[in-house]
C-alpha cells in the first residue's frame, strides 16, 4: 500500500465519522459513559485502599523498657531492635520527654511532688503490618523489655478491611471492565453493522480487505479516543465536585487521595478507549469481509 493510499484511507475515516454523525454521537457517548463509570469506580477503590493502608501504617509497636535500665542500654536495645528484619524505624521516646507531655495532656491530675514514674519507650514501625506480631514477639525476648503493646486486635480489624477493599476492588473492577469492553465493542459493532452494505459494495468494486478495514479501524480509534477524552472530562468534573463536598462536609478526609495523577487517568482512559475501539472494529469487520 503506497503513502497516497494511506493518506486517502485516513481521510476516509474522518469523512466516515462526519457523514455518519448520529451513529458517531451514539457510539462516542456510550464509550464515554462506560469509561467514566469504570474509571470512577477504580479511583474510588484506589482511594479506599490507600486510606485503609494509611490507617494501617499508623500502627506502631510500643516497647516499654524496664525503669532501671540506663540510657546506654536503651540506646543499645534500640540499635538491636533496628537490626530485626521488617523493622522500618525505631524512635526512642525517653521518659524525660514523655513526662511533661503526659502532665500537659492530663492537667486535672495533681502531679506535684511526684517523681517521673514513666518508663523509657521505643516506638517501632514495621514494614509489613502482617509481620507485626512476629516482630513484637521477638522484641519481648530482650531482657530490658518490660512490656510490648502491638495493638493486635485493632490492627487485625483494619487489616481485614484493607484486604476486603483490595479483593472486592479487583473482582468488581474486573467485572466492570468486562462489561465495559462488551458495551464498547457492541457500540462499535453497531457502527460497522449499519455499514455492512457499504462493505459489500466496496468488495464489488475490487477493494482489498485491508482497504476496507483500515478506515473503519481508524474510525474505531477516533470513537475510542473521543469517548476517552469526554470520560476524562466527566471524571475530572466528578473529582473536583467531590473534593469540594468532602472539604466542606468531612474536613478530616480532605487529605485522602487516590494516589493517581490526572495524567495517569488520561493515559489509562486513552489506552483503554483506543485499544477497545480498534479491536472492536477489527473484529466486527471480519464478519463482513468473508468472501
Amino acid at each position: 500500500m503506497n503513502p497516497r493510499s494511506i493518506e486517502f484511507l485516513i481521510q476516509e475515516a474522518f469523512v466516515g465519522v462526519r457523514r455518519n454523525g448520529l451513529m458517531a454521537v451514539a457510539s462516542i457517548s456510550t464509550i464515554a459513559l462506560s469509561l467514566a463509570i469504570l474509571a470512577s469506580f477504580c479511583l474510588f477503590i484506589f482511594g479506599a485502599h490507600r486510606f485503609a493502608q494509611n490507617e494501617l501504617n499508623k500502627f506502631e509497636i510500643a516497647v516499654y523498657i524496664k525503669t532501671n535500665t540506663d540510657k546506654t542500654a536503651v540506646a543499645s536495645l534500640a540499635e538491636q531492635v533496628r537490626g530485626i528484619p521488617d523493622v522500618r524505624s525505631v524512635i526512642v521516646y525517653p521518659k524525660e520527654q514523655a513526662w511533661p507531655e503526659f502532665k500537659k495532656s492530663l492537667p486535672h491530675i495533681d502531679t506535684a511532688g511526684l517523681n517521673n514514674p514513666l518508663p523509657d519507650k521505643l516506638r517501632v514501625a514495621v514494614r509489613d503490618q502482617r509481620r507485626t506480631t512476629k516482630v513484637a514477639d521477638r522484641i519481648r525476648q530482650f531482657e530490658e523489655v518490660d512490656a510490648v503493646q502491638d495493638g493486635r486486635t485493632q490492627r487485625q480489624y483494619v487489616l481485614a478491611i484493607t484486604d476486603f477493599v483490595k479483593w472486592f476492588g479487583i473482582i468488581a473492577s474486573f467485572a466492570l471492565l468486562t462489561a465495559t469492553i462488551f458495551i464498547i465493542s457492541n457500540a462499535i459493532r453497531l457502527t460497522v453493522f449499519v455499514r455492512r452494505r457499504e462493505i459489500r459494495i466496496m468488495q464489488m468494486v475490487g477493494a482489498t480487505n485491508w482497504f476496507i478495514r483500515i478506515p473503519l479501524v481508524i474510525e474505531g480509534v477516533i470513537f475510542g479516543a473521543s469517548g476517552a477524552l469526554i470520560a476524562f472530562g466527566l471524571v475530572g468534573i466528578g473529582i473536583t465536585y467531590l473534593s469540594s463536598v468532602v472539604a466542606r462536609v468531612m474536613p478530616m478526609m480532605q487529605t485522602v487521595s487516590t494516589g493517581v495523577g490526572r495524567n495517569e487517568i488520561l493515559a489509562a482512559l486513552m489506552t483503554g478507549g483506543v485499544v477497545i475501539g480498534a479491536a472492536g472494529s477489527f473484529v466486527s469487520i471480519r464478519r463482513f469481509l468473508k468472501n
Partner: protein
Amino acid sequence: MIDFQDVSVLYPNGVRALDGVNVTVQKGEFAFIVGATGSGKSTLLKLIYREELPTQGQVRVMGDDLTDLHPGAVPYLRRKIGIVFQDFRLLPQKTVWENLAFALRVIGAPSREIVRRIPEILDLVSLTHRCDAFPHQLSGGEQQRASIARALVNNPPLLVADEPTGNLDPDTSWDIIQLISRINIRGATVLCATHDREIVDKMRRRVVVLDRGHIIRDQQRSSYDDES
C-alpha cells in the same frame, strides 16, 4: 473471455440454481441472459465475479480458473470487471464524484489520473452536472448512470449488468441500454441479464435463455422469444 463448463450450483437450501451449464462468451461480444425470475440468471453472473462458487464444473474468466482462485486474488479479478446492479449499489455516504474516485483509489490511481478520468466518464454517461450529488438526491436513471460510470471508470474489459433496467421506466431503460451498447462498441465485452422483452427484441444481440438452471436456447442476433 468467459467459459462455463458443466457448471452446476446447488444452494444449501436444496435449490439447484444452475444445472450442467456450458456457455462461452468471446471477447467483444454483447450477450443478453434472459429467463423468468429464479431461472438462474443472477447466479450465472455471480459466478463470473466470484460472488458464488460452482458446486460442480469449471468457470474461467479472462484466463483465471475461478474455482481455484485464492480469496486474496478476488479483489484483483473484480477490478477487471465492471458490475452494474438493478439496485445501483452506490456508496450512500459519497457523492457521485467520490463513488467514482473510490473505484479508482482502490486500484491505487494517483490524484492526477482521477481528476483526468472522472470528467471523461461523467461526460460519457451525461452526469457531469450531478457530480456533487449524493445518491439519494438522484433519480433512478441518474443513479444507474452513476453506477455504470463507476463500473467503467477503470476501463474494465468486461461489463456484467444484472437487470440494469429493472427499476427504471421504459424511456430511461432504453437510454441505459444504449449507453451499455456504446460501451460494447468501445471494446468491452458485455453480459446483461434482463427480462425486459422490448429491449432484447430491439437490440437484436446474442440471447442466452435460462429455464430452471438449464440453457434452453443460445442464439446470435435473436429476440426474447424463440423465432425458429
